[in-house]
């Protein structure tokens, strides 16, 4: 990981301090992008508590998170400090039941997929 970017330390602290972290456009109540909204919906269906960061409200984070994760798109989901993926991956993992299992395996309360 490139240590040169000062925002990386902040991102690392955030994903260390919160078991489930979503970097998104807008807020869980008012998502500003359909892909972010879909991930919020999946987490809600699983009954998972998560910490959301609105990258539209933070320019440094907006660029920094893409470099930190080596991933060019938003949203981005982290579980216990591990990068899980964006909207396509989260949706596929939810539909197959993998996401619920991964969360429970990591000790996070989650409902089974319907």
């Amino acid at each position, binding site marked *: 990981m490139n240590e040169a970017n000062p925002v990386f330390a902040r991102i690392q602290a955030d994903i260390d301090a919160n078991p489930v972290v979503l970097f998104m456009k807008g807020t869980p109540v008012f998502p500003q992008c359909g892909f972010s909204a879909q991930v919020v919906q999946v987490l809600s269906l699983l009954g998972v508590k998560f910490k959301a960061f609105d990258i539209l409200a933070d320019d440094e984070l907006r660029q920094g998170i893409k470099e930190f994760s080596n991933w060019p798109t938003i949203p981005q989901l982290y579980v216990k400090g591990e990068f899980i993926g964006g909207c*396509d991956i989260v949706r596929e*993992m939810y539909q197959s039941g993998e996401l619920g299992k991964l969360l429970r395996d990591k000790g996070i309360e989650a409902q089974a997929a319907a």
Partner: protein
Amino acid sequence: MRIATLIQARLTEALAPTRLEIIDDSARHVGHAGARPGGESHFRLVIVAAAFEGRSRLERQRLVYAALGDLMAGEIHALALTTSSPSEAAAP
């Protein structure tokens, strides 16, 4: 050059897909942040490639993003990906 043509050229060169569908979803996002006049900002791709065999979802999408390179930081505002290996695509 049209963005879809660039996407097709770069993915064909990098991944030699056996199936590649490029769907321009831009019309559904008119007026939305990142949408441009003329479309070609929001895409959905369906890719079947042997290069995906044995790779995780993250690794597959990283291969696609790497192949698209600077398009991801510029012309392409949104990209939804469905990635399969030939054996997965053949499965019922």
